[in-house]
């Protein structure tokens, strides 16, 4: 049993972390911070947790956190985690950071994708990118794990088997993502009001989305060569869920059975990856409808022999495998727990 803290516990990701942690068998919640809601009971901000937790939010006090926690989740907006993670790291406490502040390995990529110079670039090499399906052994030894972006992890997992097996032309990788409103976080803007958000299919960043940098970084690790991707995300009329439709082109003809084998070989031992390509039933290809509330990333593919194209598909719950679920999976590995501890939820259907 370890004691954990959550810095920035009042947002949507913070709430999802608490939903998982209050019933996790190996964890005791210790300190939950919220600058805006210090002193308030958690259930007033996260109503669904009423009856599960009687703690109140605390202000951000580094000494208290370090003294009372073995591991800390940092769940604050991009840019705000920099100093918190740096200070925590120097104390020796284990850290799972859910912001983007330590995801990229190359400091220059922060200028390119985020528009600011990274002030603690020496820490970037200490941080492990938190996709267990790629970095499991490094995560087990890590003091600092940086959880992936929600759309990034979802598309990376769809494309990984194709790159590992060198099946595709790496100069044309097109990532199309659709994401629900909870991906925009708990802070409002004019675009998040119901009247402006309901019913949208909003191409909110057709090019140069910041998750592109992480996808390129990790697919380069997987393939052993420098990868570039073209990414276009859309905000759609869901609360939870991501679908990524990844268009790639075969470098030589492959049979359907070869693709099946490639996907099976990549993921046969993975507890949170399900292969979905079924000719029958309700669930024929990955669809976020069937992963809500779970840590699954469902992966599948289709072939277009006419253009030599593979459509690699993946679906996840952006708050789970896309954020808090990955964070718990990483914590389990860092602490030597069963990797699936506190995460074996069947998806909520229908919802």
């Amino acid at each position, binding site marked *: 049993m370890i004691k954990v803290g959550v810095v920035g516990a009042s947002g949507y990701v913070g709430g999802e972390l608490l939903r998982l942690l209050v019933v996790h068998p190996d964890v005791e919640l210790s300190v939950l911070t919220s600058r805006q809601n210090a002193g308030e009971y958690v259930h007033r901000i996260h109503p669904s947790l009423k009856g599960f937790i009687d703690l109140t939010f605390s202000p951000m006090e580094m000494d208290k956190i370090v003294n009372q926690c073995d591991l800390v989740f940092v769940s604050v907006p991009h840019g705000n985690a920099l100093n918190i993670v740096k200070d925590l790291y120097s104390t020796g406490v284990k850290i799972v950071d859910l912001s983007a502040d330590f995801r990229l390995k190359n400091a220059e990529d922060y200028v390119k994708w985020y528009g600011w110079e990274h002030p603690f670039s020496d820490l970037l090499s200490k941080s492990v990118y938190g996709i267990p399906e790629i970095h499991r052994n490094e995560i087990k030894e890590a003091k600092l794990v940086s959880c992936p972006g929600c759309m990034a992890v979802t598309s990376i997992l769809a494309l990984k088997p194709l790159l590992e097996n060198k099946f595709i032309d790496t100069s044309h990788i097109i990532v199309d993502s659709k994401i629900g409103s909870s991906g925009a976080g708990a802070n409002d803007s004019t675009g998040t009001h119901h009247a402006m958000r309901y019913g949208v299919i909003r191409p909110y960043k057709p090019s140069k989305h910041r998750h592109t940098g992480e996808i390129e970084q990790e697919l380069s690790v997987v393939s052993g060569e420098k990868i570039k991707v073209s990414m276009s995300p859309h905000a759609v009329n869901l609360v939870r869920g991501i679908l990524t439709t990844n268009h790639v082109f075969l470098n030589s003809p492959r049979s*359907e*059975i070869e693709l*099946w084998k490639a996907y099976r070989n990549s993921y046969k031992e993975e507890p949170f990856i399900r*292969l979905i390509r079924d*000719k*029958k039933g309700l669930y024929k290809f990955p669809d976020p409808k069937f992963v809500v509330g779970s840590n699954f990333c469902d992966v599948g593919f289709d072939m277009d022999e006419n253009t030599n194209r593979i459509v690699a598909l993946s679906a996840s719950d952006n708050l789970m495998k896309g954020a808090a679920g990955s964070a718990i999976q990483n914590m389990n590995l860092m602490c030597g727990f069963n990797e699936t501890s506190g995460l074996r939820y069947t998806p909520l259907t229908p919802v």
Partner: protein
Amino acid sequence: MKKECKDCGAELTIPQDSMVGEIITCPDCGTDFEIVSKTEDTVEMKEAESVGEDWGQ
């Protein structure tokens, strides 16, 4: 008895008491196979016809 799915390579389990004409469904990809002949040790199957779904007309 075990066979390999011709479409996806998954392992198909053929029940001992299955009969010619019976449909065996792949648990992974959903392809239907019809048993066309069967002895104590062997089974021959062919892909069964099915009607697909099409939207957007």
